[in-house]
C-alpha cells in the first residue's frame, strides 16, 4: 500500500515538475503569489474609485476565490499542452489511466490554494478585508469544497490542452467565463438569464456563495446545500474529464495522432 502511495506521489510530482517551469522560484512567485494579488488590487481599487464603500469585502473575497480554480486549470492546461508531442508516451504506457488522471493535478491544487491564501492575506493586510465576522468552520468547509471543484474542473479542462492549439486563448476564455458567470464580481442575479443559467454548472458558483456566507458569520449548516452542490459539480467534472481523456486516447490510437485540430 505504501508503495502505491509513493508511486502516486511521484507520478503527481514529476508530472507537475516536467510539465512547466513553475518550479522556478521567480516564475512561481510571479504566477502563483503575485498575479492573484494584482487581480485583487485591480478590482478593489477600481471599486473604490467607483465609490463602493464595501469594495474590499466584495472584490477581495471574489477575486481570491476566483484565483483558486483559474490557477489550477491554467496550469493543468499548460501541462497537458506540453504532452501534445508526447502523446505516444502518455497513451503508450501500461500504467493505470485513472491513477494518472487523478494524481495529475495535486501540485497544481496546492498552487491554487497558495494563490487563494496570498490574495486573501494581501487583502487583509493592505486593502481592509475584515476577518472579524468570519465563521472559520464554514470558511474551511467552503474552501475545501471550492478546492475540490477546482481540481475536478481542471482535470476536465486539462485534456483539451492536448487538442486545442491556441490553449492560451482557450484558457483566457475559461478564465473569463469563471470571472463573469460565477458571481465573483457581478452578482449572478444581475446577469442576463441565459448567462445566469450557466453559473450552476461551473465550479465556484455555489462554493463562493458559501464562502461569502462564512464572511457573514453564518454556520456550516446554513451553507450545507451550497457545499453539496459545489462538491457535486467537482465530482461531475472529474467523471466527465476522465471519459474525455479516454476518448482522446481511443481517437489518438485510431488516427495515429493527437492533432485532431489539424495542428
Amino acid at each position, binding site marked *: 500500500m505504501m508503495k502505491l502511495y509513493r508511486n502516486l506521489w511521484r507520478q503527481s510530482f514529476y508530472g507537475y515538475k516536467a510539465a512547466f517551469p513553475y518550479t522556478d522560484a521567480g516564475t512561481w512567485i510571479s504566477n502563483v503569489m503575485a498575479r492573484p494579488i494584482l487581480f485583487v488590487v485591480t478590482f478593489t481599487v477600481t*471599486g473604490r474609485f467607483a465609490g463602493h464603500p464595501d469594495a474590499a469585502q466584495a472584490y477581495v473575497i471574489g477575486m481570491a476565490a476566483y484565483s483558486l480554480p483559474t490557477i489550477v486549470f491554467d496550469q493543468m492546461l499548460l501541462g497537458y499542452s506540453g504532452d501534445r508531442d508526447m502523446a505516444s508516451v502518455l497513451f503508450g504506457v501500461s500504467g493505470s489511466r485513472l491513477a494518472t488522471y487523478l494524481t495529475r493535478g495535486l501540485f497544481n491544487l496546492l498552487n491554487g490554494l497558495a494563490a487563494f491564501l496570498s490574495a486573501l492575506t494581501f487583502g487583509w493586510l493592505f486593502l481592509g478585508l475584515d476577518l472579524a465576522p468570519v465563521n472559520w468552520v464554514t470558511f474551511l468547509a467552503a474552501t475545501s469544497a471550492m478546492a475540490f471543484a477546482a481540481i475536478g474542473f481542471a482535470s476536465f479542462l486539462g485534456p483539451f490542452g492536448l487538442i486545442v492549439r*491556441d490553449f492560451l486563448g*482557450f484558457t483566457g*476564455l475559461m478564465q473569463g467565463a469563471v470571472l463573469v458567470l460565477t458571481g465573483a464580481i457581478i452578482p449572478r442575479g444581475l446577469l442576463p438569464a441565459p448567462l445566469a443559467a450557466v453559473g450552476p454548472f461551473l465550479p465556484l458558483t455555489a462554493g463562493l456563495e458559501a464562502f461569502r456566507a462564512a464572511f457573514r458569520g453564518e454556520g456550516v449548516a446554513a451553507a450545507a446545500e451550497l457545499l453539496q452542490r459545489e462538491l457535486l459539480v467537482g465530482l461531475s467534472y472529474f467523471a466527465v474529464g476522465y471519459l474525455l481523456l479516454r476518448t482522446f486516447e481511443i481517437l489518438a490510437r485510431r488516427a495515429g495522432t493527437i492533432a485532431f485540430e489539424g495542428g
Partner: protein
Amino acid sequence: MLPRYLHAVRQIYLQQWRTNVRGGADLLAIVSLVPTVAALAWIGQQSGRNTVTTYLVIGLFFMVLWYESMRGPRWAIMDEVWQGTLESSFVSCTPFILLVFAKTLAHTAGGVRPGLIAVVTAVLVVQQGLDVANTVGLVAAIGGVVVGVTTASLALAPLTVLALGGITATRNIMVVISGFLYPVSYLPPVLGIPSRLLPTSWGMDGVYAAIVGAPASDVIVPVAISLVVSAGYVVLSVVLFGVIEGRLRRTGGLVSARG
C-alpha cells in the same frame, strides 16, 4: 542613412503586423478579454457617475492597448531567440532598437482593434453616455498616454527578456500601477509611489482632469510630465538595447534569455 532606416522600420512594421493578424491569430485572445472588460465596466457602472464610467471606458481601451503593446516586443525578441534569427538581426546594419521599435509600433497599432472592442463592450455594460468637459484637453492627454504606452513598452522589452524573464506577471503589475482603471492617487502608497515612474499614470491624470473639467493647468502639467517621463524611457531604451547588443557580441548569444 535616415531613409534607409525608415524603409527598414516600415518593412519590419509590416512584417510584424501581418504576422499578428494572419488567419485571425489574435481572435481568441481578443474575445477572451471581453469578460474582464465587462466585469471592470460593471464596477464602474455601479458608481452611477458619468465621470467614472467615462474614465473607465477610456482606460479600458488603454489597458487592452497596453496588453498588446507590452506583449509584442517581448515575444518579438523571444521569437528571434527561438528561431535563431536574433544573431542575423545584429549582423544587419539596422540598429536592433529600431527593429524592436518597429515591432512595438505594429503591436501597439494592432492593439487598437481589441481596444475598440473593449470600448464597445464597456459602453454596452455601463449603458451611460460619455461625458467629457474638456475635449481638447482629453485629446492632448490621450496623445500623451499613447506616447507613454509605446515608449514604456519599448524600454520594458529588453528588461522583461533579459532581467525579468521569469516575471510573467509584469503585464499585470503594469496595469495595476498604470492608472488606466483609476487615478493612481487611489492606490495604497506602496504602489502609488512606483506608479509615478510610468508615464501613463501622469497621462491618465490629465485624462481625468479633462473629463471632470478641471482647470487647464491640471491637464497640461501632467501631460507635460508624462512626455518628459516618456523621453526618459527612450533614453533608457537606448541604454538597455546597448546592453543587449554588447552582451550578444561579447558572449555570442543571449544566454540569459528565457521563456
